[in-house]
Each structure stands twice: as structure tokens, then as C-alpha cells.
């Protein structure tokens, strides 16, 4: 695949990532995930299934939670992308990230960025989601360590923290 990639001309993609305009050349068939990781050096979004099954590459595209592996990098041209790296504020962890640490919602950690993004998205839309809503909102994220119980604890903890602040 590498040789094949070298043969075709790259395209220039310019995207606003976490508030900052970023531009890079990329293989025309590359996904937004590949663009973020390989061109922009943002390794928070993880590459696992490459078919939208696992949610490890979840980012916001123009405010909507999407799998970045299923977005063509060129489709994100002139659009706004927010990644897990954009959640920290001046080096301080986002309340969802803090809750994951405190609840022990991390085993191997590979799925964690995707879950953190999906939980942050959920709590931005619904400050006190029901258990069913939480499960539904996280149905596109897979944890193969099967640490779901602790992840659900982290969601409750984060929701409570965020409610206290408002």
C-alpha cells in the first residue's frame, strides 16, 4: 500500500483542529484519522478497527461525534475538528478525564480517548443522562478489556461533578 500511495499526488487539507488552523499534504484516499495522527502528530485518536465499529477514533466534526476513520481527510477541509487533545484546558484535565482516572475506568487505555470524547459529547447534550441513555450514547465504543462497569461509574462521577459546577 505504501508504494501505491507514493504514486498518486497528495492533496492539501486545511482544517481547524482544536481551534487552530492546520494544513498538510495527505494521500487523497486518507482518512481524517490518518491525517490527525500521521500528518498532524495528534496521537490521542486511536486507530483500531478502521471500519467504524470500535469508536476509538471518535472526534467532533463540526460539532458532531463521528468516527474519524470513516471521514475522508479531504472532507474535513475548511471544517472544524475537535479531538481528545482539545479537551484539556491549559494542561488541566477535563472533568470527564478526571473521572476516568478516579473511577479506575482505564485498563489497557486504548479505548479511553474514544470513550472520553463520547462521554464528553453526551454530557454536553444531556447533563444528567439516564442509565439507558448512557449505554446508548456509548454503544459505538468498544472496550476489549471489558471494563464497562468502571466506565459507567466514571460517567456518573463526571456528570455529578459537572452538575456541581453549574
Amino acid at each position, binding site marked *: *500500500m505504501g508504494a*501505491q500511495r507514493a504514486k*498518486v499526488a497528495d*492533496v492539501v487539507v486545511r482544517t481547524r483542529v482544536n481551534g487552530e488552523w492546520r494544513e498538510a499534504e495527505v*494521500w*487523497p*484516499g486518507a*482518512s481524517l484519522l490518518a491525517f490527525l495522527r500521521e500528518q498532524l502528530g495528534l496521537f490521542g485518536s486511536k486507530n483500531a478497527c*478502521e*471500519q*467504524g*465499529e470500535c*469508536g476509538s477514533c*471518535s472526534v467532533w466534526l463540526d460539532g*458532531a*461525534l*463521528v*468516527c474519524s*476513520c*470513516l*471521514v*475522508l481527510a*479531504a*472532507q474535513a*477541509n475548511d471544517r472544524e475538528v475537535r479531538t481528545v487533545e482539545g479537551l484539556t484546558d491549559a494542561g488541566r484535565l477535563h472533568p470527564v478525564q478526571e473521572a476516568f482516572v478516579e473511577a479506575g475506568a482505564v485498563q489497557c487505555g486504548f479505548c479511553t480517548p474514544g470513550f472520553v470524547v*463520547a462521554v464528553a*459529547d453526551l454530557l454536553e447534550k444531556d447533563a444528567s443522562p439516564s442509565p439507558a441513555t448512557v449505554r*446508548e*450514547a456509548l*454503544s*459505538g*465504543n468498544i472496550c476489549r478489556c471489558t471494563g464497562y462497569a468502571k466506565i459507567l461509574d466514571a460517567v456518573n462521577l463526571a456528570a455529578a461533578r459537572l452538575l456541581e459546577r453549574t
Partner: protein
Amino acid sequence: MDVFLPRSLEEALAMKAERPEAVPLAGGTDLMVELNFGRLRPPAIIDLTRAAELATHRQEDGHVFLGAGVTYAAIVNELPGFKPLVQASRSVGSPQIRHRGTVGGNLGTASPAGDALPVLAAYDAEVVLRSQARGERSMPWHAFLMGPKKTAIAPDELIVGARWARIRGPGSFSKIGTRNAMVIAVAGLCLVIDEDHRRVNVALGSVGPTIIRATPAEEQISSAMASSGAWQDPSTAVSEQVIDEFAELVASAARPLDDVRGTAAYRRHGCRVLARRSLAWALSERRLPTWL
């Protein structure tokens, strides 16, 4: 590989006319998998997500037009009056997938497992196509869906959307799979009752080379309801025997295969169960007409 980013449908059609070998890309939930796995290297890709006309829906003269670029998330949020369509859309993938996947993608991919397709079939929808050279044409869903991953689209055409006459009556979409989320249906069924024409429409997904209408079952239940007076009086009970016959006829309309997701026998049985359930739901809904 060239990537085109047209800003309107008109621009997209001009590009498709010039480069008929270009592959249209919407939500990417099918095409990107092929690209990511190296199974497809199209000479060109046309991104349709900037063509705002495709992401619209409207209702006019008793008809509904659903743009090819309307996502499943948008259907769930914006079209609550179309319950079977909302139920099918709600069952697609995950939140991430529903934010990107479109009805046009289900039509273009033409997989028998496309969740929106049995609904469009039960609605008797037409598929609206457009080219720069010949303008717009539409054809019934069954003429468009020619077989597994095979459609009647011309190389210079794009799918503009689907259109159907609004049906007054209850209905549902249901499917069988191993989870509630991220499931490719083992069997899917849409049942719609058309009160004005006194018909029951039943369409099956994932149990044949393309979407199947269970015509003998539709005729059996529609005429049984006519002879029992159930059309005039929704409180009239439909006998167990009639329901059994209906479920059996739906099951025998399926043309399933054995594959990794299920055996043909399991799929056929699934159709029987879904048929019985969805008919029971629709009949009880007729007694409490929340759909009015």
C-alpha cells in the same frame, strides 16, 4: 486518485458528467471501509457532503421527499412523524455512524441489509436520480435495487433522494441481531398499514439478494381484514389463525442464505417472528390511533 469537493449538487453533477468513473462519497460508512482496507482504489472521489440540496427533506402535495444526504441522526430528530423510518434510522450503527450515514448511502450501496431500504420499500418509494445531461428521473425502489450491491443508476447520475406518497396508518421497523447497537441485521422487517387504501405492506431486509415485499402475505391479511370488517372497525379482532397464516406467508417470501451472521432457517424463522410481532403492534395501534 483525485478528490473533488463540489459546493452544490449542480457542481457535483458537472463533475460526475466529466468523470463518470468517480465514486460518490457521503457519510463514508461503507466507502471509507473499502478505502481503509485497500479493497478499493477509485480513480476519483466526489464528496457530496457540501451539496446542501441533498441534505434537505420536504413534504408537498401528500408526498415526502427525503434528500440522499439526510443523515440517520437528522431523520431521528427531524422526521418523528415517520415512525418506521425513525425506528430503522435509530437502529443503524451507533451515534457516531448515525451522524454520518445517509439514506442515499443505503440506496447507493444497495446492500440487502441496508436498514432504511425495507422502509422505503414498504412506503412504495421512488428513487430520484439526476444527471447533468438528462436532468431528473425517478424509478420505483424495486427497479432501482437490481440485486446485491447492484443498482440501475447510470454512470453520470447521482442519487438525489427518495420520494413517496405519505401513508396514513400505523407501522414499524424491527430487526434481529446480536446487539441493540452496531448490528448488521440478520433479518429486518417493515410493516405499514395503509388505512386509505386498506392495504398492509410488508418488506423484508437481509433475507434475500435484495429487499423483498411479501406480496402474498400482504394480500392475505388485507383481504382477511376486509372480510372480517376490521378495516371499518379497528376493534374487530383478527383471529390467531389469520395471524399464523400471515406470519407463515411472510416467512415463505424470504429467500435467505446461510452466512456468518445466521443460517437461512434462522433468518426465515426471524421473519415469522417479526411478522407476527409487527402485525400485533400495528393492530393494537389501530385501536389506539396515536398515529392520527
